[in-house]
């Protein structure tokens, strides 16, 4: 769990970003795209490779992160995520198509003022 700082609230990533994922061999990639430009700096600060690795602990062997400020997006590589990948994998999601929404389950601390503006059902 992420420690809560006094002026922040935990918000699930699904309310801050959209995402698409795919595969390259036994690695899954997740492109995480801020729903609003104002959310992007929060994603850069809080959705760190270490936190994503913890989120997927036991499911992946390592995480790399790349920044795409031009899309307000981050790209994550999740290594050894696909039970061998391609045709070898026995997983339902052998091509890593829904790692995208698995990442959106993560809670991150968001400044309280910004959290109040986030649209949630």
């Amino acid at each position, binding site marked *: 769990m992420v420690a809560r700082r006094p002026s922040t609230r935990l918000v699930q990533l699904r309310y801050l970003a959209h995402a698409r994922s795919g595969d390259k061999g036994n690695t899954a990639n997740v492109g995480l*795209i801020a729903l609003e430009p104002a959310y992007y700096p929060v994603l850069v600060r809080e959705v760190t490779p270490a936190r994503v690795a913890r989120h997927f602990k036991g499911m992946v062997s390592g995480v790399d992160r790349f920044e795409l400020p031009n899309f307000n997006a981050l790209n994550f590589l999740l290594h050894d995520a696909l039970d061998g990948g391609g045709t070898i994998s026995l997983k339902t999601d052998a091509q890593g198509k829904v790692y995208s929404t698995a990442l959106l389950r993560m809670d991150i601390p968001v400044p309280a003022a910004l959290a109040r503006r986030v649209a949630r059902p």
Partner: protein
Amino acid sequence: MTRTNGRTVRIAAGQGFWGDWLEAPVRQVRGGPIDYLMMDYLAEVTMSILQKQKSRDPAAGYARDFVPLMERILPDVVSRGIRVTSNAGGVNPRGCAEAVLAAARRLELPRKLRVGLVSGDDILGRLDELLARGHALSDMESGRPLSDIRDAVLSANAYLGMAPIVEALRGGADVVVTGRVTDTGLTLGPMFHEFGWSPDEWDKVAAGTVAGHIIECGAQASGGNLLKGWRSVKGLADPGFPIVEAASDGSFVVTKHAGTGGVVSVASVTEQLVYEMGDPRSYITPDGVADFTTIQLRQAGRDRVRVTGIRGGPRTPMLKVSIAYFWGYKAVGTLVYAWPEAFDKARAADKVLRHRLADLGLAYDQILTEFVGVDATHGRLSGAPSPELPEVQLRVGVRARERAPVERFTREIAPLVLTGPPSVTGFAGGRPAVEEVVAYWPALLDRGEIEPHVRVEILEA
């Protein structure tokens, strides 16, 4: 035939993979003005499937759907002056090109059809010679040398870039049929041909690469599989596949035909751009290296996204080679358990099954159990399931190098219905099938070993 500056060239996506929506190319050709139709058929493992088909029938080995599809659209293609680029040729581009010519003859078109045939990507017959001369063709992921699995190799093809497509278009081809040309090359080729760009204008190469990447998965750029605001995407029963309107300065607009469903937005294009992405600064193709962090997207009207600013760098001295080899066997069996305590019943059944497999002394490389409805897509992140779940599907997969243990596994699923936990159903499909596993081995090879062998021919009918 270089067009003047200021004109745009319209390149439309017709297929995003082998098995994509069959109506899409027809609608692209008839639904509005386009100059080129590009159809991508080849995923990583497709080549090995095609190689297997060719070994059984020398006339096979290409994406067979392509020919009846071309037969449907050739009259429009010819009358509207549309040109087609496709890698449907697989491991038998000549067979594919000849089948298209035969279709053209059957149609009695108002003029002759010219088919450009690109070959030279297939290096299966040259593998031993290449290995003997010191090319290790090591697996890019594991680093193992190809000699470890040489006897199991089924197909080996180099990824070619746009050059042979440009040459075929220059030669007057109406339809260009290739083997393992990159998805992006099918879009780059028409752009370089039309604008007369030099292949070392790296920013132009990068721009065309990005354009190709955006449309190579078909409707995935125009509202299909779009997560952001998915409920508001209308008309997916008749999705407009994406179209690139390219300008001679390297900028382009992504759009779709008027009156079609789906949506072209910054969100739809961005989701496609991050799909299957590695390091965004270095998207490597045979033609150059594109920097995805330079791409600027702007909504420029309804279903129109303007793409500008793309920068890139020089091509690398190596070409990627796609090798497929025989790995072994796998099978997946499923059963459905009903309320109450559906998950507990499914879990108990999995235990019984594994116990029996162990008692039989069967060895597997992997046994994977998933509970569909509980954890199959998100694993432990899904949390504990409710005891009131209406049903759970037990899904067990096994793989092994030998056929026998996999074969025996397929006979251990049905007995669970009468010899395991209760409230079980969903076995209408019969015994699971044993599948052969063909695995993928990506490697690198010097350009100089490939490019002199690439050949472009223009055939007529």
